[in-house]
């Protein structure tokens, strides 16, 4: 449920780094708490986004929530499959359900993210108890 090859942000987003690019999505926990996802708003490609701010919004049958961008950068690509099939996020949050790719601005920000073990511990100790 929490693969080792990605890094995690406390607002329940994951990033997979590949060179100067990062692919972003939401975690298994996030999609599970949102429930059935019905819409993903397309962010503007080429716009910049700062770490810890809103990348885009997701609507589920339960709520409309922000997707928080774990790292700063410029949006290169949005997963257009999500326009007609947003439910892919529920089905495959770390694979076909990726949301966007950004060009990283400051790779040192990666250090602040959690690995899978840390994220699971964070979920158990801080999130799920609330």
């Amino acid at each position, binding site marked *: 449920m929490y693969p080792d090859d990605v890094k995690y942000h406390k607002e329940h987003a994951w990033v997979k780094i590949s060179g100067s690019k990062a692919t972003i999505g939401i975690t298994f926990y996030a999609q599970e708490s949102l429930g059935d996802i019905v*819409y993903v*708003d397309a962010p503007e490609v080429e716009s910049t986004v700062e770490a810890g701010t809103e990348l885009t919004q997701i609507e589920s*049958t*339960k709520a*409309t929530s922000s997707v928080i961008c774990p790292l700063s950068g410029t949006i290169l690509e949005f997963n257009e499959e999500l326009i007609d099939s947003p439910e892919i996020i529920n089905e495959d949050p770390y694979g076909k359900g990726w949301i966007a790719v950004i060009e990283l601005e400051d790779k040192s920000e990666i250090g602040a993210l959690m690995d899978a073990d840390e994220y699971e511990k964070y979920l158990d100790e801080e999130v799920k108890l609330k």
Partner: protein
Amino acid sequence: MKITILGAGPGGYVAAIRAAQLGAEVTVIEESEVGGTCLNWGCIPTKTLIASAEVLHKVKNAHNYGLDLEGTASPDIQKIVERKNRVVGTQVKGIRALFKSWRVNLVEGRGRIEGPGKIRVAFKNGSSEDIHSDKIIIATGSRPAQIPGFSFDGLHILSSDHATNPAFIPRSLIIIGAGVIGCEFAFINNEFGADVTLVEMMPHAVSGEDDEISELLERELKKKKIKLLTNTSVEKAVVKGEGISVQLSDGNTLEAEQVLVSVGRTVNTKDIGLETAGVKTGQKGEIMVDSCMQTSVKDIYAVGDVTGGIMLAHLASREGIVAAENALGGNATVNYDVVPAAIFTSPEIGSVGLRERQAAAKGIKYKTGRFPYRALGKAHAMGEITGMFKIISEEGTDRILGAHIIGPHASDLVHEIAVAMEKGLSVRDIARTIHAHPTLAEGIMEAAEDVHGSAIHCLKR
């Protein structure tokens, strides 16, 4: 007392019936069809088209409700327009029957004020008739506004009048103006299969609404793949073969089969004898009236769109009632603070009172409460969960200042708040009132609770 009314739209015909109820001898002059824009080219025709679009949408999504349908559903625009004509025809007959029942005399021609208490009616056959009365109520309404370089031809460049009577569904449609009318036609044409682009000068669609309502509607446009270009105006249009190309202020050009211009409405005050009568008009030609709906000339009243205010059928009707009562010795006024409005987009919008930005601009200390449709069991059962309720209230007094609803049946739901505002009720009055379950109206109760942070079906913040 003899009263003559110019125009049989929702302002004029309602004034006529109220005046007749109060014992006046009433004549109504109408050059086109009773019911005016509202019934013939506005409110009712669009709602009829929307009803067809909604059924189409439901049928296409029947599988979501566990229904297996064979074959495909597609709009037959001729039959849709025929249905619209039947609906309009029934309503027109209804008004004519009301006139007969109240002994309102309907004169079908074009009226012009010729002197104190004197109106000359010109008939289509060239003859004319003079009508004398003690008081006159002007209710001549408005027509779609034109913009230079975009003359309506009904083929490539349409007004909203044309759009209520479509001969075919365009493959692609550019709509200039993303206001109430533009957005309603955007959703209708999109559902019928047209590729729709809205071009709007202002930064948002339905910019007269509360900002959060605009924001949510813009997302729904996006979901339907209706393109919206904001902060953009149009320069000129060139007919090109089968279609038309429109040059935008940003230098880009758009091409489509048809263009619909919906940039507002112009008052009908030309050549109705206002100068002869000495009736004062404003900068846009609108007739100036006082709070009793009387013009600058004693015994001449004006109501509805022609007065240049908020152009809404139901406001015209209220003004018509007020004018009729005052013409017959009453002392009625209109409460412009509580004018509910409805926009029949998908989903619908219902609003009344202050927008949040207006409350802020007035320096009022206010609170807001919100509740999503998504949190209502009824919305899930209906399969329509997009939308929100928002209530704005005055801090301290708890008095309701405005409400904004976007979602299914918003246009009906908003009236609970309209009554509450008319009676000066507080948010707590709404919250304490039991609302039936399962209904969408529960959302109003919850939004009222949320003003004080106590909505039941909201996670703790």
